[in-house]
């Protein structure tokens, strides 16, 4: 089994020749494009840490297909421990990068398709699962990074996919051939798309019978003929071209490096098709993927919180206010929020279960609660980070002004802090906090893995509200309470009649 290092991963991208556009230009080489460097580095960390004995316990797993050691990002979870280690890996990588490392989408896609193809085959006698296992084996053997391509462009959301004005608004089957299918359509804001080896598609929503050509899942190489990428803009993205300092996190960037993927008459051989028309399993695939992916956010975003909490404390020290009670209180709030989210993701992993396929899935209710908390708490801890850092995070002069001998010296003098904190370091840290708390990372925490409304739908569906009503009715005395009756040794009604009588007698004595 190959387990690539970070450097080997980057070199492996050179073998690909995808058609990518950014700023209206066709990109000649992914690896040599400075705008892409931070995203590539962030993904490379997922490879690099697997080779460090200090992290290998989390970063690697044992393949259930071969028994060999593999990068955990290619693993299908075989027990509760795998689910727990997966979220531990997310937190670890969030800490190391301070941003999105992209590879979890493909991991969750692999697991969700593994689980769902088994169920499809049970119902229809198809052979998707065996087909998928062969693909998974190749992913593991080559340590590929597949991008998980789920969300479609979606157009008018009041209309079903098959009723859209433009048929390519959703990815769909155009033609079924003897040896494969022809597909067209657009997948939107796909994380890590331009620096992945493969594309792994899934439907974006529940499909009805009229949308069966949209009930589609397949895998293809990233540079397949007919596939075009348009790399998305991000907050302050061109600062990467201005120097080193202003970008805030020049090594690993900001969010995941999302892209549009346009499929135009793309041929997919049958051996790489994992769903083709089984619309009654789209909900299952979407919910399974969403469950896995939403659980991750209590790991990765908490890793980011670790970085921003550390940065906030460091800035408070540099500014000489670290011992102020309001700063300690604010930092404590940030920590408590982050650990709350961490508790959620650990809980949804520990409460996971074995699916009929043998793979393990997280507790979906708790995973959705995890993500819903993230949609709120990331904003809150980043707001506190801004509060502690002060107004400088949005008014700092540029790196070019620091380099300018006319202005640089006075800026450095004015930005010096407490003894032992060099002004340039203070500026670096403020830029990092700006990058993490002001930019695209916030709406990414809101909408990545689905918007809050999607989480609430799944929470409501799985809340067991009828059971809760019964509990309330029992405690309120509407339903029979057999344990209470056992404690008091009689029927509840008789008990209360006797009680009322006793109270009445007592009142007569008092008044």
């Amino acid at each position: 089994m190959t387990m690539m290092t970070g450097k080997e991963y980057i070199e492996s991208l050179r073998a690909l020749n995808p058609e990518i556009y950014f700023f209206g230009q066709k990109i000649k080489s992914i690896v040599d494009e400075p705008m892409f460097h931070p995203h590539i580095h962030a993904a490379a960390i997922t490879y690099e840490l697997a080779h460090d004995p200090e992290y290998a316990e989390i970063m690697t797993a044992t393949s259930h297909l071969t028994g060999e050691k593999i990068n955990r990002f290619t693993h299908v979870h075989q027990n509760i421990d795998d689910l727990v280690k997966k979220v531990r890996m997310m937190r670890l990588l969030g800490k190391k990068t301070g941003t999105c490392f992209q590879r979890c989408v493909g991991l969750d896609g692999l697991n969700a398709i593994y689980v769902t193809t088994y169920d499809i085959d049970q119902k229809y006698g198809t052979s998707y699962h065996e087909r998928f296992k062969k693909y998974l084996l190749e992913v593991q053997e080559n340590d590929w990074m597949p991008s998980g391509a789920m969300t479609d462009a979606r157009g008018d959301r009041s209309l079903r996919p098959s009723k859209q004005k433009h048929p390519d608004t959703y990815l769909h089957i155009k033609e079924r051939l003897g040896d494969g299918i022809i597909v067209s359509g657009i997948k939107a804001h796909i994380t890590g798309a331009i620096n992945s080896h493969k594309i792994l598609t899934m439907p974006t929503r529940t499909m009805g019978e009229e949308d069966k050509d949209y009930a589609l899942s397949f895998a293809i190489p990233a540079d397949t003929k007919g596939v075009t990428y348009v790399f998305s803009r991000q907050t302050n993205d061109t600062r990467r071209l201005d120097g080193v300092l202003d970008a805030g996190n020049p090594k690993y960037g900001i969010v995941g490096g999302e892209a549009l993927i346009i499929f135009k008459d793309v041929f997919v051989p049958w051996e790489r098709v994992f769903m083709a028309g089984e619309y009654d399993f789209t909900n299952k695939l979407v919910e399974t993927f969403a469950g896995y992916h939403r659980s991750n956010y209590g790991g990765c975003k908490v890793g980011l919180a670790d970085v921003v909490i550390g940065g906030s404390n460091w800035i408070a020290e540099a500014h000489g206010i670290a011992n102020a009670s309001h700063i300690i209180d604010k930092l404590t709030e940030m920590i408590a929020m982050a650990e709350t989210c961490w508790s959620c993701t650990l809980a949804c992993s520990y409460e996971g279960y074995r699916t009929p396929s043998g793979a393990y899935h997280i507790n979906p209710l708790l995973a959705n609660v995890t993500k819903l908390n993230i949609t709120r708490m990331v904003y809150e801890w980043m707001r506190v980070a801004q509060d502690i850092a002060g107004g400088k995070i949005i008014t700092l002069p540029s790196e070019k002004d620091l380099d300018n001998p006319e202005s640089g010296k006075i800026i450095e003098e004015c930005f010096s802090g407490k003894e032992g904190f060099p002004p340039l370091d203070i500026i670096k840290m403020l830029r990092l906090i700006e990058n993490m708390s002001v930019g695209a990372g916030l709406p990414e925490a809101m909408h990545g893995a689905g918007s809050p409304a999607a989480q609430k739908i799944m929470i409501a569906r799985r809340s067991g509200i009828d059971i809760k009503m019964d509990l309330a009715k029992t405690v309120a005395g509407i339903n029979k309470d057999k344990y209470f009756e056992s404690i008091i040794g009689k029927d509840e009604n008789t008990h209360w009649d006797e009680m009322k009588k006793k109270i009445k007698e007592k009142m007569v004595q008092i008044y």
Partner: protein
Amino acid sequence: MPSIGIRYCGGCNPQIDRSKVLRNLKELLKKKDLQVDFITDKERSVDIVFLINGCMHACLEEEFLRSGHNPQHISVKGEMVDDQYIKEESIPDFLIKKIIDLFNSLHNVISF
């Protein structure tokens, strides 16, 4: 008479009414004129064990399998029985079929 050992999970946050599942199963067995001895005493030997977990996490299954002595068993885990998703209202019907199959495999006859 064939015997089934009954084991309940702790019931912290069940997705199904565990005692109702058993109650309905007993009623259904009675309707079909099938006699089974349900035993809750863990010490007594039984033909098969019936694990009733309130949710898919199935704490009881984990504990049962870990214990090392694994007689034939059927595991209800929320809206799942063994490796199949089953709606709560259909669980008793499904269990009857499973029980008959299991007894057949054990005794090679329907021993009811």
